[in-house]
């Protein structure tokens, strides 16, 4: 069974609006896959991720996570399996310290203190920020905040990770660090980004959205090498390929 399945997914922000943001999307994601979602601004990348998390429920067609239809009555089950890393980490982190923020999810799911402690420590270890546990959130750098956001999702035990522009506003060293961490994570990863080099480094499969439809779905290298296809969709060859050619 696919971990994520979309069938003829359509979405528009208001019922009165004639224009659909997402049009007839069909795709499935298997366990262990890393999928990049690319496309120009306003094509619906973030919208697609928000539909999968259940933040936008008024879609047409079918969207399933681990067999559960993304509907209000299934949100509890879905959200235990799936985590969403916001583009702006400041909007995601709201507790005083790193430890408290990472523990927020497990505590909400009624886990015992010992279990919470174990999960928080493991998540901090996976994201290599054990040393930040007692640090105040407002004292963190942009890169550290991103890692804390990911740790907060991992602590819940989610193995489907959705990330919206994870490399935005990161310096090269933090970006490299994030790439390594994402590579090491198990489970499904879906990354929406304009940073095609980042997608190249983290995803083996890429979906190119154009005008709300899937223009390409396949091997990352194949799409990122296709200058005509990228340029026709408002994108440019990633730097790694530009120098190769």
């Amino acid at each position, binding site marked *: 069974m696919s971990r994520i399945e979309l069938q003829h997914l359509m979405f528009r922000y208001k019922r009165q609006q004639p224009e659909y943001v997402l049009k007839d999307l069909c795709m499935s994601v298997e366990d262990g896959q890393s999928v990049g979602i690319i496309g120009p601004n306003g094509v619906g990348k973030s919208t697609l991720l928000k539909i999968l998390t259940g933040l936008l429920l008024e879609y047409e067609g079918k969207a399933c996570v681990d067999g559960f239809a993304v509907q209000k009555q299934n949100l509890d089950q879905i959200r235990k399996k799936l985590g969403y890393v916001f583009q702006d980490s400041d909007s*995601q982190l709201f507790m005083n310290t790193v430890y408290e923020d990472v523990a*927020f999810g497990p505590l909400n799911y009624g886990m015992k203190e010992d279990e*919470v402690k174990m999960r928080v420590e493991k998540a901090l270890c996976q994201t290599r920020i054990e040393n930040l546990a007692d640090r105040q959130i407002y004292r963190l750098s942009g890169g550290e905040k991103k890692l804390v956001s990911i740790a907060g999702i991992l602590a819940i035990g989610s193995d489907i990770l959705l990330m919206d522009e994870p490399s935005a506003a990161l310096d090269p060293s933090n970006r490299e660090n994030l790439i390594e961490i994402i590579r090491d994570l198990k489970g499904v990863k879906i990354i929406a980004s304009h940073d095609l080099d980042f997608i190249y480094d983290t995803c083996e499969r890429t979906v190119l959205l154009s005008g709300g439809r899937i223009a390409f779905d396949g091997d990352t290298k194949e799409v990122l090498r296709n200058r005509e296809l990228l340029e026709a969709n408002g994108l440019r060859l990633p730097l790694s390929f530009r120098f190769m050619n």
Partner: protein
Amino acid sequence: MDKLDSAIQTIHQMEDMAEENRFFCHIHPLAKVLVTLWYLVLVMSFDTYNLIGLAGMSLYLIILFVVGEVSVKTAFRRLRLLFFGIFLLGAANVIFDREVLFRLHGFAVTGGMLSMLSLFLKAGFAVLAAYLLMAGTTVNGMCHALRIMHVPGILVTLVLLIYRYLVLMLKEAARMRQAYLLRAPGQKGVQMRAWGSFAGQMLLRSMERAEQVFDSMTLRGFQGEFPFLKRRWRMRTSIVYAVSWGIALFVLRKFPIFYIAGGLL
């Protein structure tokens, strides 16, 4: 530094102070909240003209400032506007109550003067006690204590969310003000004619940020009540702290220490 930035920094400094590794920070928040409430009740119970008895209650504040390693200077600087407001409020008493109660070396002391002083001391003590509580307890800790006291979860969550959103709103306001001033050289602040759109934009942006924070919370299982992390509080010390302050404050209330000391002299 900009006033808004300074306000945000003050909030962060208070949070830092409450997280420090000091004796006062290791006491269970419930003990501190109960002692503070008990103190407030006792301070408010003093008769308007019992100034000497009331002054004895300052011992609690003095001891906490020393034991809690809290800077008195900083406290008075941060609370100066509040003290000024209290002073203005009390000053009205002098105008309305002019009855002479006694004369001190020929100077007529009216009921209004004493009630003003009494109001000033009571309100000042209450504000300082609340400040000392905040200086050693995080907002989460205080809310945890309120939940233990069976204050409804919805109210406690409301307090926490207001606190979080207040910081978000201040940050948005600081960002917008900075963007405005960078494009308005020579201006000291936001001009009157820009205030309408400025306030509207700030509200919309704050609401958007608040919505994102709420989304982030619901995605991590938030069901309407904040979970609290149990810390390794020093339970025995906390019990001793609450009981001994409970008794000591009662004794201070019953036996005005300054009268007794004056009698001995």
